[in-house]
């Protein structure tokens, strides 16, 4: 009985290590075909359109809403201490350091990552990936790499747009609605944010999250069971694993940055 549970632990560990190894090989494969001719720019542009441009509306709208909520919540708390003038700093720092990269990555995981995994998984299910192999076209080169790279390009930009729209949302609530001075808001915002501590951290975070989402979505899709249940499992798995990975890496990057 006891040896049974120990061997189950061993099996789980081996499965995990096997997964990590396959992910590493998969990543190496993507990296190899990405730097090798042909570059497949046409497919890359189309993928940037699918995961970047089509996510624009939800990302900008969420950014403005989150900024507005931060403005409202921050104002209520800060005005208790007579420090409503620091509203810009509160909105700016929370958006740049945490909410911008993390929420954008979560939104893009749900909006584009899941679609990516489902598309690849249904290509596996309907034999299109095998068809590519039969024509001696490397499916990783033709299908996977453009999708993963598009995520890497689109997510940092979406995150920067999210943050900018968040500033605007905070401005709308703080200045237009609650009557704070516009100059105070903007100077407190710009004065509190540092490039090295805050903006660079934000960009590094969103790039790492982009790599995570791109890898997990394409890996789960590509290694899906060729059944309809496999497609749904790949989609669900992508959203769950990518969301957890984003939050975990967010903590790790924040902790490492302040060392």
């Amino acid at each position, binding site marked *: 009985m006891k040896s049974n549970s120990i061997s189950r632990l061993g099996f789980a560990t081996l499965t995990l290590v096997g997964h990590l190894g396959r992910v590493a090989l998969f990543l190496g494969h993507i990296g190899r075909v990405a730097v090798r001719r042909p570059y497949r720019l046409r497919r890359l542009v189309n993928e940037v359109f699918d995961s970047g441009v089509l996510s624009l509306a939800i990302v900008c709208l969420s950014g403005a809403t989150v900024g507005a909520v931060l403005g409202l919540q921050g104002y209520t708390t800060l005005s208790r201490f007579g420090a409503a003038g620091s509203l810009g700093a509160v909105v700016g720092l929370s958006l*740049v350091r945490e909410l911008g990269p993390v929420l954008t990555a979560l939104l893009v995981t749900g909006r584009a990552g899941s679609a990516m995994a489902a598309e690849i998984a249904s290509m596996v299910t309907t034999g299109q990936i095998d068809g590519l192999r039969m024509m001696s076209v490397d499916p990783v080169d033709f299908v996977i790499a453009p999708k993963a790279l598009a995520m890497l390009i*689109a997510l940092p930009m979406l995150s920067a747009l999210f943050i900018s729209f968040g500033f605007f949302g905070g401005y709308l609530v703080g200045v237009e609605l609650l009557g704070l001075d516009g100059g105070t808001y903007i100077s407190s915002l710009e004065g509190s944010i540092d490039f090295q501590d805050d903006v660079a951290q934000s960009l590094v975070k969103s790039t790492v999250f982009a790599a995570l989402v791109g890898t997990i979505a394409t890996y789960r899709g590509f290694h899906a069971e060729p059944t309809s249940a496999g497609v749904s499992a790949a989609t669900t798995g992508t959203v769950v694993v990518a969301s957890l990975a984003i939050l975990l890496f967010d903590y790790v990057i924040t902790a490492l940055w302040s060392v």
Partner: protein
Amino acid sequence: MQPSPIRDFIVGLFVLAGLGAIAYLSIQVGGLSYKGPGGLELIASFDEIGGLAPRAPVAISGVKVGQVSRIKLDPQLRARVTLDLDPTLELPVDTRASIRTSGLLGDQFIALEPGAEEQMLRSGEEIAFSDSALSIERLIGKFVNNAGMDDEEKK
């Protein structure tokens, strides 16, 4: 997949907007800017800088003219603060630098009070006169001690 000029154009716009947002965050908000040569760099030493931090503003009569670029401890164990100022400024050698607080709970900044000498400070020179930060805790401590002593004397 067919080439589609409209789609390419939209993706191009998206990339431009994204790069624009990143540039806005880095340059306007993050304060990453190219500093040309010849910025006026002055040094001021203080016994106590309180909560002064790099990038704190430097002001003359309340107008911002530069910022704190570095804070280090000198061999005499005083705080050595490097100020990066507008190169067009002409400050007399008897300029005084003092650490002030904007408002009761506000951030600390350095206020410069120009003196009356004919000779001007050049880049890399040190400001001779300085006032340290006022620490409210220390003031209260002094006040409480003095009050205590007064009571002793009365007895």
